[in-house]
């Protein structure tokens, strides 16, 4: 059963990444150099939609709170984020979109995957050394959510009701998706209407 779900949800995810342009480095590059924020609006709306549905479902008792999986916060999360951001901008791929892009026929994505496998191996080799730096030690409570989600095994940064806060933040993401302009930097693609 779990393998069937992996096939179905995985295939849906791969197809959606292809259709929204997330596995297309042109859209990633133009989002990150702020000349076309269409994909940013897609991502913000997705986070908002996902949040509202998940926390709304929890409040209605339809979504199992136990399915949440919150990762720990530590200094390496930020440093790793910086590294990923640099490589993401350079290549136009992140781990998920890189494998999808390779499947859509992008040959340069195969080089990304090869580099990725080597990078992951390099982390496997250097993990003990990284661990001794203390960079992996939990900060701000470790695996925490911004509010306290009823029934969840995770602590909250605040005592605000985590499900209500989740829906509120979800709505903020959706709102930002709507008000974000299509373009911030560079020249407009078309001449504005007089």
């Amino acid at each position, binding site marked *: 059963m779990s393998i069937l779900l992996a096939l179905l949800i995985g295939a849906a995810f791969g197809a959606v990444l292809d259709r929204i342009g997330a596995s297309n480095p042109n859209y990633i590059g133009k989002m990150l150099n702020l000349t076309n924020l269409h994909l940013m609006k897609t991502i913000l709306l997705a986070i908002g939609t996902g949040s509202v549905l998940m926390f709304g479902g929890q409040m209605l008792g339809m979504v199992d709170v136990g399915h949440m999986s919150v990762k720990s916060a530590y200094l390496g999360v930020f440093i790793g984020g910086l590294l990923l951001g640099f490589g993401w901008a350079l290549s136009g791929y992140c781990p998920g979109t890189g494998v999808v892009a390779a499947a859509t026929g992008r040959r*340069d994505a195969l080089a990304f995957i090869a*580099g990725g496998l080597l990078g992951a191996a390099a982390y*496997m080799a250097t993990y003990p050394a990284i661990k001794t730096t203390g960079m992996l030690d939990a900060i701000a409570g470790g695996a925490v959510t911004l509010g306290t989600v009823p029934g969840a095994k995770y602590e909250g940064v605040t005592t605000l009701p985590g499900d209500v806060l989740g829906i509120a933040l979800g709505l903020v993401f959706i709102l930002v998706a709507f008000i974000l302009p299509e373009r911030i930097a560079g020249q407009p693609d078309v001449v504005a209407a007089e």
Partner: protein
Amino acid sequence: MVLNWKVGGVLLGLTFFLAVLLVKPIGVSTQFVIFDGILWDAIDQTVVTQTDDGAYTSTNAYLAKSGGKYAKSVANPLNYSFVFVIAMMLGGFLSAMARGGLSRQEKKMPALWRVNFGDSQGTRFLATFVGGFVVLYGARLAGGCTSGHMMSGMVQTALSGYIFAAGAFLAAIPTAMFLFRQEP
């Protein structure tokens, strides 16, 4: 052409929601480690071992961490998360075929790269190879990638997701603004 962001955003959000509803939040970058482990274990079968009580462990400290959960996945590749990534490729392939496939030019390299750095396949391969190395090293250091930390994390209001997204965009936006000055 890509889907309008209102349609695409809802579809992507639904995918993340369905994953949490039915199984668990989506994540991808761990599977690069699992695949490395599978290759490594195929060459050297002493890397991942099963102890007498049935648990898995590894000579590699990273595969052995958290009670050997990565070692277990390496020993059993037919698990949810690994099959998920294989299925992503299948879904992406079918979707691209259904919309007519990519042009030869795009398969070689994206237009945005070509207009800024020329048509050399070698240069582009070097950039994506280095990019891939840095992305996966960073993702493993962070404990997740764009899917697991940024999307799944922020959907769940995880503090770590916000920290990760701040780091990622703080590096990605200046890098892209510096690299890609010409528009295709």
